[in-house]
């Protein structure tokens, strides 16, 4: 049974208010806390000695979902977990991951999740990953996710990565390799505050003809926090890639955006856009002229930006 804190973390990271429909695997403080499989989606504990699970989704599975949230509510847990997703051909599924850390103690809590996705031909995957941290202990809340995506022909992967609150340190690495006609969309939303540090590195290899990617990051850096966004798109053939980093910088924060485009074919069309700046003065003025205070206007602008 999950306690209140654990339930609250599940709501934060997976919008869950109870046991979800479909397949799921709950991991709480390093232990399996619940699992359900369906006729089409199997979840099995790894047998190779590593911690983690294998998720296998049968060919043709449509309109099903898998939830695999992780909660750390004891101070001082450090774990590396390997989760492998084998998505068959012609699927249309939603995968909700996410990690919530509640750290009231003085020891660091750290979850390093290594997620690998093998996406079959013509399959569509929507992946949502939320990070959330809370607790007033001195111990740090650390998340270092590694995501690898291998997309077969004509597959479509849409990833939403969200980290709005409470994670002290993140180093995110996302790598993808796309075959013919495959598409990968990434929407990252990030807010850092206090002394938080967040690094996000993307490397998308467009290997198949007509493959495409759009990596979009929107972030807000406040207080003394630091963010590094690095997006590398490699175009090995006729393909199209677009990366965009749009950051609002506040207070004494520090934001670095590093674009890297690598075209190996004349028909590789790659674009990178990066913008870092403070909240636009005219946006504040407009909202204040509607009767909002400056602080209210700021909150609305940031809320919209990170939506």
């Amino acid at each position, binding site marked *: 049974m999950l306690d209140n804190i654990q339930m609250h973390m599940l709501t934060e990271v997976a919008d869950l208010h109870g046991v979800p429909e479909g397949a799921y695997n709950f991991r709480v403080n390093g232990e399996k806390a619940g699992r359900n499989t369906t006729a089409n989606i199997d979840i099995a504990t790894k047998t190779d000695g590593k911690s983690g699970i294998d998720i296998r989704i049968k060919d043709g599975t449509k309109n099903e979902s898998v939830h695999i949230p992780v909660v750390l509510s004891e101070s001082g847990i450090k774990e590396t977990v390997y989760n492998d997703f084998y998505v068959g051909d012609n699927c249309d599924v939603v995968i909700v991951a996410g990690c919530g850390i509640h750290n009231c103690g003085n020891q660091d809590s750290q979850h390093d999740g290594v997620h690998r996705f093998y996406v079959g031909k013509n399959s569509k995957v929507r992946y949502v990953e939320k990070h959330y941290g809370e607790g007033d202990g001195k111990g740090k809340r650390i998340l270092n996710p590694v995501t690898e995506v291998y997309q077969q022909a004509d597959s479509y992967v849409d990833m939403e990565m969200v980290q709005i609150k409470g994670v002290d340190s993140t180093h995110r690495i996302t790598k993808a390799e796309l075959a013919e006609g495959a598409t990968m969309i990434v929407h990252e939303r990030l807010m850092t505050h206090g002394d938080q540090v967040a690094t996000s590195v993307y490397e998308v290899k467009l290997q198949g003809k007509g493959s495409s990617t759009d990596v979009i990051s*929107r972030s807000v850096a406040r207080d003394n926090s630091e963010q590094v966004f690095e997006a590398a798109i490699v175009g090995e053939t006729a393909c199209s890639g677009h990366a965009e980093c*749009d950051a609002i910088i506040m207070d004494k924060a520090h934001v670095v955006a590093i674009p890297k485009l690598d075209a190996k074919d004349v028909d590789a069309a790659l674009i990178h856009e990066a913008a870092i700046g403070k909240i*636009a003065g*005219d*946006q504040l*003025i*407009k*909202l*204040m*002229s*509607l*009767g*909002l*205070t*400056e602080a209210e206007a700021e909150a*609305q*602008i940031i*809320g*919209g*930006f*990170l*939506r």
Partner: protein
Amino acid sequence: MLELQNVTYTVTENNIEKNIIDHMDLVIPDGKFVVITGPNGGGKSTLAKTIMGINHISSGRLLFDGEDITAKNITERAKLGISFAFQQPVHFKGIKVIDLLRLATGKNISKDSACEYLSKVGLCAKEYINREVNNSLSGGELKRIEIATVLARGTKFSIFDEPEAGIDIWSFQNLIQVFENIRKTVQGTVLIISHQERILNIADEIVVIENGKVAKQGAKADILPELLGTASAVNAACSKLDPKGGF
């Protein structure tokens, strides 16, 4: 009633001081439909921003309903009942049309009532309500949404800065109707900056601003013929629709 007493707004450019608003005295009476016009660069938008509190004046006083608002900020003036539709609408990221209308009304209004404000400015509401207020909307669409936010506030003093700018000829007809309706239904004071004869034509009063000063102010019947040369020119001009041209 809004009153400017000897108001000056000065900017410094290349070490040269310039009075964009130059010792201006102006009274805008209650419940009137007042159109401000005058040459480009005369200081009309600057005046509007000065009333809203966006520009800080160098000297003089502003009174609103007898209260000295010179030291009040934008939010405070907005709460006292002043609204302003910008000449150049602001773009946002992630804020939707419905959000802006809700912020404008200060209430969590339903989609239906938000749609009513959009219909008033001639937008087919359902298509727009969930759109982001960004450059995926055309200039004319943004402009009409901007006007709708001021209608949604429904304050006793509303300023519209060149509402016709960027609006196509078909929507222009519609926009004139919007302002004719405002003229009939709004209890408060409406201040419109415009070059449009058809808007000038529905004014109670016209104020001409040039070089940061009030060059002329008076009833439409007195000022408009002067602007157009002769009284007969008014009739001739009114019979043809020419939204692009000003006076």
